[in-house]
């Protein structure tokens, strides 16, 4: 089907196949609103997704879109940004995609600090395969789609993000579009790797972590006085331990907001130390040949072996 959307619209006209009432709609709306507000030309944005309900979002946003493999959204997103640092890169995953099959990439990404944004659609279940337990499902819970109660302890995306070195770690909620939109904008503006763990109820399979569950529990830590900004390494080290304490909170009160925001060296700056021209030239747009004749020249290299 040919796309008929207007150039400046950030929404495609592709029919959306999420279940009615799915939390994913709120995330899509917030993302589109954020893009509209930031007015980045569509062709300069790349959105990657893995596999799962949430990872279909690249089809619904009118930007460059890489629908990758299960667990590989973040790996590919980082490579896009490394290949062309002028692009604005957002990667999307479900919690199974990002913290189960893709957890190795999650941890390694923190070591790089590529300047991009990672959205985790966190609903505790594998929706597309009919609701098995996912890495964030709390211990002992048994949503209606499970055959047995969940006997695994959950991964805490915020705690893992802080431990791995994400320099912007936050949580938001798919039914609080205003907060989510603002958080996405802050994450995109942050220079470095940003994580947004988005509480996103699965209306079909997870009857426990529902809108009714989250609405009374979620509170904004920044409204309660938490300032996530760390302006020096010392401040970062001081704040991160407090951020961990907040991140581990889960019960009658569930924290959301930005837990840490620390501006340090991004991966393109680090690469520039090794490759002086990196980022100054646009490798994608720069020609590698002139009428088929290579511009690369191995003459000196050959000499070095003579």
């Amino acid at each position, binding site marked *: 089907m040919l796309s008929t959307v207007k150039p400046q619209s950030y929404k495609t006209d592709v029919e959306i196949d999420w279940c009615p009432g799915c939390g994913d709609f709120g995330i899509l709306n917030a993302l589109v609103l954020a893009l509209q507000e930031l007015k980045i030309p569509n*062709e300069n944005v790349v959105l990657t997704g893995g596999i799962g309900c949430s990872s279909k979002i690249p089809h619904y946003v009118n930007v460059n879109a890489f629908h990758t493999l299960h667990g590989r959204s973040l790996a590919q997103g980082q*490579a896009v940004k490394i290949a062309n640092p002028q692009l604005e890169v957002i990667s999307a995953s479900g919690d199974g995609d990002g913290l189960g099959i893709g957890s190795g990439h999650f941890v390694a990404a923190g070591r790089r600090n590529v300047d991009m944004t990672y959205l985790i659609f966190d609903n505790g279940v594998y929706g597309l395969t009919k609701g098995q337990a996912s890495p964030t499902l709390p211990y002992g819970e048994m949503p209606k789609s499970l055959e047995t109660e969940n006997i695994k302890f959950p991964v805490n995306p915020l705690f893992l993000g802080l431990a791995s070195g994400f320099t912007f770690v936050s949580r938001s909620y798919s039914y609080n579009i205003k907060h989510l939109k603002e958080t996405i904008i802050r994450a995109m503006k942050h220079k470095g790797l940003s994580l947004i763990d988005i509480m996103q109820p699965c209306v079909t399979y997870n009857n426990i972590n529902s809108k009714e569950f989250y609405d009374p529990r979620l509170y904004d830590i920044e409204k309660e006085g938490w300032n996530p900004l760390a302006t020096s390494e010392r401040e970062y080290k001081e704040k991160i331990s407090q951020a961990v304490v907040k991140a581990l909170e889960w019960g009658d009160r569930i924290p959301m907001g930005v837990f840490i925001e620390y501006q340090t060296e991004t991966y393109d700056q680090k690469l520039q130390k090794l490759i002086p021209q990196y980022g100054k030239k646009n490798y994608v747009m720069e020609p590698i040949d002139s009428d088929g004749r290579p511009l690369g020249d191995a003459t000196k290299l050959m000499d070095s072996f*003579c």
Partner: protein
Amino acid sequence: MVNDLNLMVAGPQGSGINFTSDTFAKVMTREGYYVFTNAELFSTIKGEHSYFRVRVSKDVIRSYSERVDILIPLDARSVILHKRELSPEGAIISEENLDDPRHAALPYRDILQTVATKFGKNLSELNVMKNTIALAAATKMIGLGGEKLKKVISENFASKPQIAQLNNAVVDEVYSKFSSNKKFDMEPTKYSKRMLINCTQAVGMGKVEAGMKFQSYYPITPASDESNYLESIMGEYDFVVEQTEDEISAINMAIAASNTGLRSATSTSGPGFSLMVESLSYAGMTETPVVVFYYQRAGPSTGMPTRHEQGDLRFALSAGHGEFPRVVIAPGDNTESFYDTIESFNIAEKYQLPVIVLLDKAMAMSNMTVEQFDLAKVRIDRGKLILKETSNYLRYKLTDDGISPRSVPGVKGGLVMIAGDEHDEDGHIFTEDADNRIKMMNKRMKKMGAVLKNTPEEMKVKFYGEQKNKKVVVSWGSTKGPILDALELVKNTSFLQVRMMEPFPVEEVTKYLKGKTIIDVEQNYSGQLADLIREKTGLVADSRIVKFNGRPIAYEELVRAFARVPKEKEVVLDYA
């Protein structure tokens, strides 16, 4: 006069054996000789027994020899293990008291003491320079001037001039004090400027020439030498080498960088390629130009990581679920590795599909002298890449040749939608329409016919020898070297080197093999190429000569084996 000299340096890993053999190989290359080296080492860092061979000749050589003329043992065990390979006229350069008429004794301690005293050092500080004594003794026996050796040593230690000075003082001491009744007067040769390289360096230079801008890898033997070489030059030649958290990330990063518009590759070995397989299938489905450099080693599983094998041909051909087009190329030497590297990127971008370049441990760890590459021959073809503003863009537009114009992010009007699910022309996945499936499968698979049709014969096969010969040896990859060396001593036998394994060049292979006595030579257990030829052409190999003990083939083994075929249906080589 000697025209085929073989030097072996043997000892515990980490005792300087590669320094000794590499320096000797370089000195002889600089003299204008052809050199071929073979490294046999353990998958450990220090201690285990390892050995390096250096073969030298004024004529072209492409393999190692079973015979050793000069043995440099760096411990007593090496004498016991290797003296049976030493020729009767050979020499063992050693300080030990050996009951062997071939012993060329040197007073190691006195030499080191003299140098230590001269420079005000302790003797213990110079113990590591024992191999320099042996090296100098070897070059003296060959009749080379000590200055030539000292120049290479100075280059090797360019960043540590004091170490160079001490080593060179050792060389002077050996040259002034040591005289041996053993002489290896090499037949003189004319100097010609040649490179001494292994295939990891050839591939690396090919990538620079090809304009590759992104390489990802996860450390693995024997592939990481290539990535490490690229890391050493990326600052000057302006590209990114990314060490990833695993091979799954490595290939996904290469795929994403490619879909962002860069010529991209990843390098790995068997265990790493196994992890990449799902993503290879994704590259086929998404029509992503990505090149995988696959350095085979002895499997299965972890196998023998530092040992050689060509056991992964069938795997490279079939890896990945579902049916998708791929190209598999197998260079047979360093020169082919260079040109094939460049061509692999051209093919990947022209046809928008994954390309696998099959290499192996023997090529990765053997240095040989080669002529400088002819850069004037190199061409870049990026296919239907769009980098300027466009409109009404569809990433998977149906075209006559199955190849769609390829836009990348950042191109105005050319928004890209890439999808690993079956998709429409626009890249969206919400159709599982039966007709669309047929169109898209046809679109992708028809590229294979185009590759076969447009690829010149020398990319597919190379034929050596006379067409009238009844016996034809068929093989692929690094066995090319020992086969060509052996065929200089065997009459009436030709050689067909298969270079493109997928799509398989049925027409060319049939042309050269039909009606012939077919002798298959491979470094694997089952003869995978012979099976492939039977599958694709119906032609059956009369004999299979295989070797799977982890060591490359010495040319003498093949000379003997060729005398046993086709009478014997299978010959297993076992020289180690």
